[in-house]
């Protein structure tokens, strides 16, 4: 069999074309991050614009020092923890809801649009509504209670739609087969359903994490006395916009890319072992 048939050649062309497009696309999405990356090494006397006034690790050093305005490390930690909790709750709730929606039930349409409403309520107003209610009831807001509640309301529709798409293509005969063999409902879920929907669950969780981590408008009145990271950054901008922010951005980018690399590595090892 000839190696380079015209068909294979054409496929290679197409693939290369797409790959180049993908590369350009990634460059486009990362766009301003390049400026950010370069400027994180800004000299001590410089600011967040060009020209560079020397290079230094000064702004990187500021990441671990106490901040001038606010508390970046604390806010970062809070945002991370909050995002992780939101991630888990979103994944769980989305899965449960999407499973319910596989059948028709009373009030399904109404519930569907209620979930969707979580997407549409402008964040600031939801924040105000919640805050006023809480004040009326005498409950005080905290990042781990009120902010958490509103974040989940926001992320749930995203996770839910993802899970709906996953179950859309799901073959329930596998589940039925398991049931016929006498498995309990929970076992069916654990052994059959869950492994198959896992990518969707992970995606829903990822959405939850990402959206919560960067959420700003909904959190403003509901974070209580300790800021989350977006609130903290916004506050520090009232004083000065410094390259420290760029160092933070670059650090989180490098960290994320690193995690993807780790994921790749682990996956390859596991997969190879499974063979």
């Amino acid at each position: 069999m000839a190696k380079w048939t015209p068909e294979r050649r054409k496929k290679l062309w197409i693939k290369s074309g797409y790959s180049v497009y993908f590369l350009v696309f990634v460059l486009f999405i990362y766009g301003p991050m390049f400026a950010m990356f370069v400027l994180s090494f800004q000299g001590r006397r410089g600011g967040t614009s060009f020209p560079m006034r020397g290079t230094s690790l000064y702004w990187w050093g500021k990441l671990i020092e106490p901040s001038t305005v606010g508390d970046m490390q604390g806010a970062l930690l809070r945002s991370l923890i909050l995002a992780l909790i939101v991630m888990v709750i979103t994944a769980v709730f989305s899965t449960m809801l999407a499973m319910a929606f596989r059948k028709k039930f009373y009030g399904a349409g109404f519930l569907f649009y209620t979930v969707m409403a979580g997407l549409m309520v402008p964040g600031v107003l939801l924040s105000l509504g919640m805050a006023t209610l809480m004040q009326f009831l005498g409950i005080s807001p905290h990042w781990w209670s009120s902010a958490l509640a509103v974040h989940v309301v926001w992320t749930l529709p995203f996770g839910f739609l993802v899970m709906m798409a996953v179950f859309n293509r799901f073959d329930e005969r596998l589940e039925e087969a398991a049931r016929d063999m006498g498995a309990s409902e929970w076992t069916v879920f654990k052994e059959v359903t869950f492994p198959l929907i896992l990518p969707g669950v992970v995606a829903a969780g990822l959405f939850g994490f990402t959206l919560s981590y960067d959420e700003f408008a909904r959190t403003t009145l509901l974070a209580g006395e300790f800021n989350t990271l977006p609130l903290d950054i916004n506050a520090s901008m009232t004083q000065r916009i410094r390259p420290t922010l760029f160092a933070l951005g670059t650090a989180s980018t490098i960290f994320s890319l690193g995690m993807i690399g780790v994921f790749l590595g682990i996956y390859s090892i596991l997969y190879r072992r499974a063979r």
Partner: protein
Amino acid sequence: MAQLDHAPHPGLIGAQPAPPPEVVEQTKIYRREGGFPISWLVAPATLWLFLFLVVPLLSIVVFSFWKSTGYGMEPGFTLDAYQNYFEVEGFFDASHRKFLTPSVFVSTLFSTFKFTVVVMFFCLLLGYPIAYFLAMQVKAFKWQLSLFLVCMVPFWTSYLIRAVAWIPMLGRRGLLNTFLLYMDIVDKPVTFLLYSEFGYVMALVQIYVVLIVGPIFFSLAKIDDDILEAARDMGATSFQIFREIIGPLSLPGVAIGLIFIFVMLMGEFATAVVVYGGKTSTTGTVILNFYGVANYPASAVNALMLMLAMMIGVIVILRVVNIRKEL
């Protein structure tokens, strides 16, 4: 084989007693039998939504009917806020310059909508091929996911930081201009990239296009390769395959992705300030402005109108592509 125990067996001739009802039930074949009880699945999320979404939302509706004092609001019932929203002096006056012009809040909503649609179009145009590439061209799952995550990474840098980084990227003394000048492509810095409509649309596309890639990628990934092969074997051209198979099967993903970015774009307020220099107003900005002077009823009215617009948009998208029917 429980039913055999129930039915007495005098022989093959003669009347057999009817099986007891519970046996009859057991032998009926349900299409989707089993599964956890619906109420269990639905309860936690519903409760959560009720407490933290429905109730605050209702209070926003209530606020929109309250009276705005200088420093907050007062319970009551008035249509002042709505009037202020819609009212235009001289609307019916043919000689007035504002004849038949919608109020500034309505036109802001339209303008927000206009930008949203434009950005959605470009996101779909640019994002679909990427999803296609990841789902169809990249074979190994681990690479699919990794490359997709690479696209998601910018999302994990705070939005505020990314927005601020646009200026040193596109500004007069920015990276891009420095490059263009260095390569002698232009002899003066290019200024239309920043603080302009072009720059604004580009920045929005850049931020949100990834959101549409995800769902489309999912839909495409589920397409069974066998179907495609079968179509090819039957002599279909690539274009036909796309039009008849891939396209329709990816529609739910497209719809979901469109809903995501539609909703986020309509609620936008920060990008216009940073990248467009605040030279346009979105409804989100108006909501914040009124919020910032404690005129909560006006803020609430704008928010409700925005929500209404979003609802209509989502319903339209869902009618065109009926996701629920797909299930």
